[in-house]
C-alpha cells in the first residue's frame, strides 16, 4: 500500500531521488485517477512543509525553488494517470512582475506555492504594462491581483497599476511582493497587503477567499 505520509515527508525533505523512485513504483501499477490525485495531494502537503520551514528560517529561497521543481516534475510523472478529474480551486489570482522590472524568480516562487495551495494563477509575465493588468483583470475576474518587483522602480509601477485598476472599477484584493516592498510602500501604493515571503503571501491570499 502506498505510504502517502512518506511522500509528503520526501517532498518536505526535498529528497528528489527517493521521491522519484517511489513514484516510479507507484506508476508501474497503473493507478486510477483518484489514486494519482491523492499522491498529488500528498505532494502539495509536502510543499506546505517546505513553506513552513522557510517561514521558520530552516529553509531558504533556494529550497523553495527546488520544491517547486520537485512538484512540477511529480505532476509530469503523474499526469498520464490523472485524467480530467475536477480539482477544487481555492480562488483565482492574476499575477505579474510590474512594468520596468524584468525579474521573475520571486513571482515564480509565489505562483508555484499558490498553485500548490489550490489557486488558479493567471501569470502575465515580467515587465507587465499597466493596461495588461487592467485588461486581464476584466477578462479573468480574479479575486486577487499579485504584483511583483525586485527594484525600487517597481514601486512606482505598482502604484500606477493599482490606481488604474481602481479607476477601472476592479475591486480585487491587491497584494504586492518582492525585495523593495514595506509597510510604508504598501500604504503609499494603496495595496491591501504586502509580503517579502512567498509562503506568507499565499497564507494572506488564503485568508481572503
Amino acid at each position, binding site marked *: 500500500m502506498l505510504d502517502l505520509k512518506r511522500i509528503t515527508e520526501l517532498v518536505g525533505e526535498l529528497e528528489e531521488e527517493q521521491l522519484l523512485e517511489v513514484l516510479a513504483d507507484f506508476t508501474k501499477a497503473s493507478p486510477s485517477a483518484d489514486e494519482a490525485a491523492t499522491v498529488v495531494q500528498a505532494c502539495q502537503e509536502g510543499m506546505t512543509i517546505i513553506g513552513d520551514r522557510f517561514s521558520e528560517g530552516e529553509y531558504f529561497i*533556494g529550497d523553495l525553488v527546488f520544491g517547486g*521543481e520537485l512538484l512540477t516534475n511529480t505532476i509530469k510523472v503523474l499526469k498520464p494517470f490523472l485524467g480530467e478529474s475536477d480539482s477544487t480551486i481555492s480562488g483565482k489570482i492574476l499575477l505579474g512582475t510590474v512594468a520596468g*522590472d*524584468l*525579474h*521573475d524568480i520571486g513571482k515564480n516562487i509565489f505562483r508555484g506555492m499558490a498553485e500548490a495551495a489550490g489557486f488558479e494563477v493567471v501569470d502575465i509575465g515580467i515587465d507587465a504594462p499597466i493596461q495588461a493588468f487592467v485588461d486581464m483583470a476584466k477578462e479573468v475576474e480574479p479575486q486577487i491581483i499579485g504584483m511583483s518587483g525586485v527594484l525600487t*522602480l517597481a514601486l512606482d509601477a505598482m502604484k500606477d497599476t493599482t490606481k488604474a485598476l481602481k479607476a477601472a472599477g476592479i475591486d480585487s484584493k491587491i497584494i504586492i511582493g518582492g525585495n523593495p516592498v514595506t509597510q*510604508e510602500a504598501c500604504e503609499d501604493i494603496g495595496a491591501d497587503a504586502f509580503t517579502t515571503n512567498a509562503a506568507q503571501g499565499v497564507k494572506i491570499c488564503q485568508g481572503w477567499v
Partner: protein
Amino acid sequence: MSDKSQIYQHRLERLTNAVELKHGDRVPIHSLIDNWALFNYPTTLKDARTNLDLEYAAYSKATTEAYFDTISFPGITMPLNFMNSLGGGIYSDEMETIQIETGLSEIMLPEEYPKLIANPRSFFVNEILPRKHKIFQSGTMEEKYQKLAHSLSFLFKYFHDRGVLVDRFKTEQGLPVIEAIAPFAAGDLLLDSLRDFSGSINDIKRKPKEFAEACMAITEQFTIPTTFAALVQPTNDKYLHMFLHLPPFIRAKDFEKVYWPSFKKYIETFAQKGYKFAILFEKNWSHLYDYLQELPAGCILGFFEEDDLKVVKAKLSKNMCIAGGISTNDLTYKSPQECIDVAKKIIDEVAPGGGFVFSTDKVLLGKNDANKECLIAVNEFVHEYGVYK
C-alpha cells in the same frame, strides 16, 4: 601638496583606518550611488553613456550635494556600448537601469560541468561566448576577429573614460573612488552568467560536487589570474569590489559545500598580498557568520544590507570593517529628522571602537532609492556627529 590632494589623502586615511580596524578621527561616509545620480541630475542612461562630461556632471553632483568621504563608482558601472557592440548579451538597459533579464543567462547545460571544470578559459571562449553574443554566430573566423576588435575599441574607451572620471573626482573633489575592478565570486559567475538562478539551485541540489569543483576551477584558472592581470599591485585607494548574490538564498550546509571553499581561497590569495576588498553581502547573511569569522582580518570593507548591524559588529568586528546604516526605504519614506534619528542610533550602537563606515544599505539605482533631502541631512549629521573623541 594641493588642497584637494590633502583632502583626498585625509579622506583615504579615514577609510583605511576603519578598514584596518584602527581608530580614526571620524566615521567615514561612503557612497554607493550608481544610476540614481542620473535621475537626480536629471539625465538619462542613454545620454550619459555617450557624453563623458555629462556623466561626470551627474555623478559628481550626487556625490557633492551630500557629504561623502569615499565613493565606490565614478560613473556608469557597465560597459554598455561594448556589450551592445557584441550584439547583445544578458543585460538590458531599456529601463533606465541595468538589469539581467531572468532566463537569458541559462547559457550552459547541466551536463557541461566536466568541460567547464577541465578548462574554464577554453570553455568560456569556445562554448559560451558564441552562444551569448551575436557577433560570434556567423561569418568567417577573420570576420569574427574583425568584429571583436571593433567591439574591444568600445571596451578600451570605457576603461579609459573610467580613468578620466576617477582622476577628475580626485583632482576636482578630493574624493577617492575605491572600486578598481569588480571580480565575480565563482559561484556568482555560475549564477549570473552561466546557469541562471533556477539552474544553479537545481545543480546545487542535484550535483553539488560538480558545482563546487567548477567554482574552484573558475577561481584558480580564471578569476585569480585575471584579477592579478587587472590590478598588478595593491594600493590603499584601489579595492576589489565584490557583490555576492548566491549565499543568502542557500542553506549554510550547501554554502559550505559549493561556494565557500573557492570564495575563501580567492580572498586569502589576495589578502596575503596586501589587497583590500569592498564586499556587498547582499540581503541577509545571519546564517553564515561562522564562516565569515574565518576571513582574514583588516582588509575587508563589508557592506550589509538586511542584517542587524549591531549583531554583525558583535560577530565580525575582529575580521572586517562593517558598513551600512541607512536603508533606501528610510531615505524614501521617512522625514529628514526621522532618518537622522535612525543614523544616530546606528552610530551610537555600531561606531564605538572604530571599524565602521556609514553608507546606504544598497547601491542607489532607481529614483525611488533616496529622497535627496534625506540623504543630504543624514550625511551632514553623520559627518558632524560621528567624531571619535
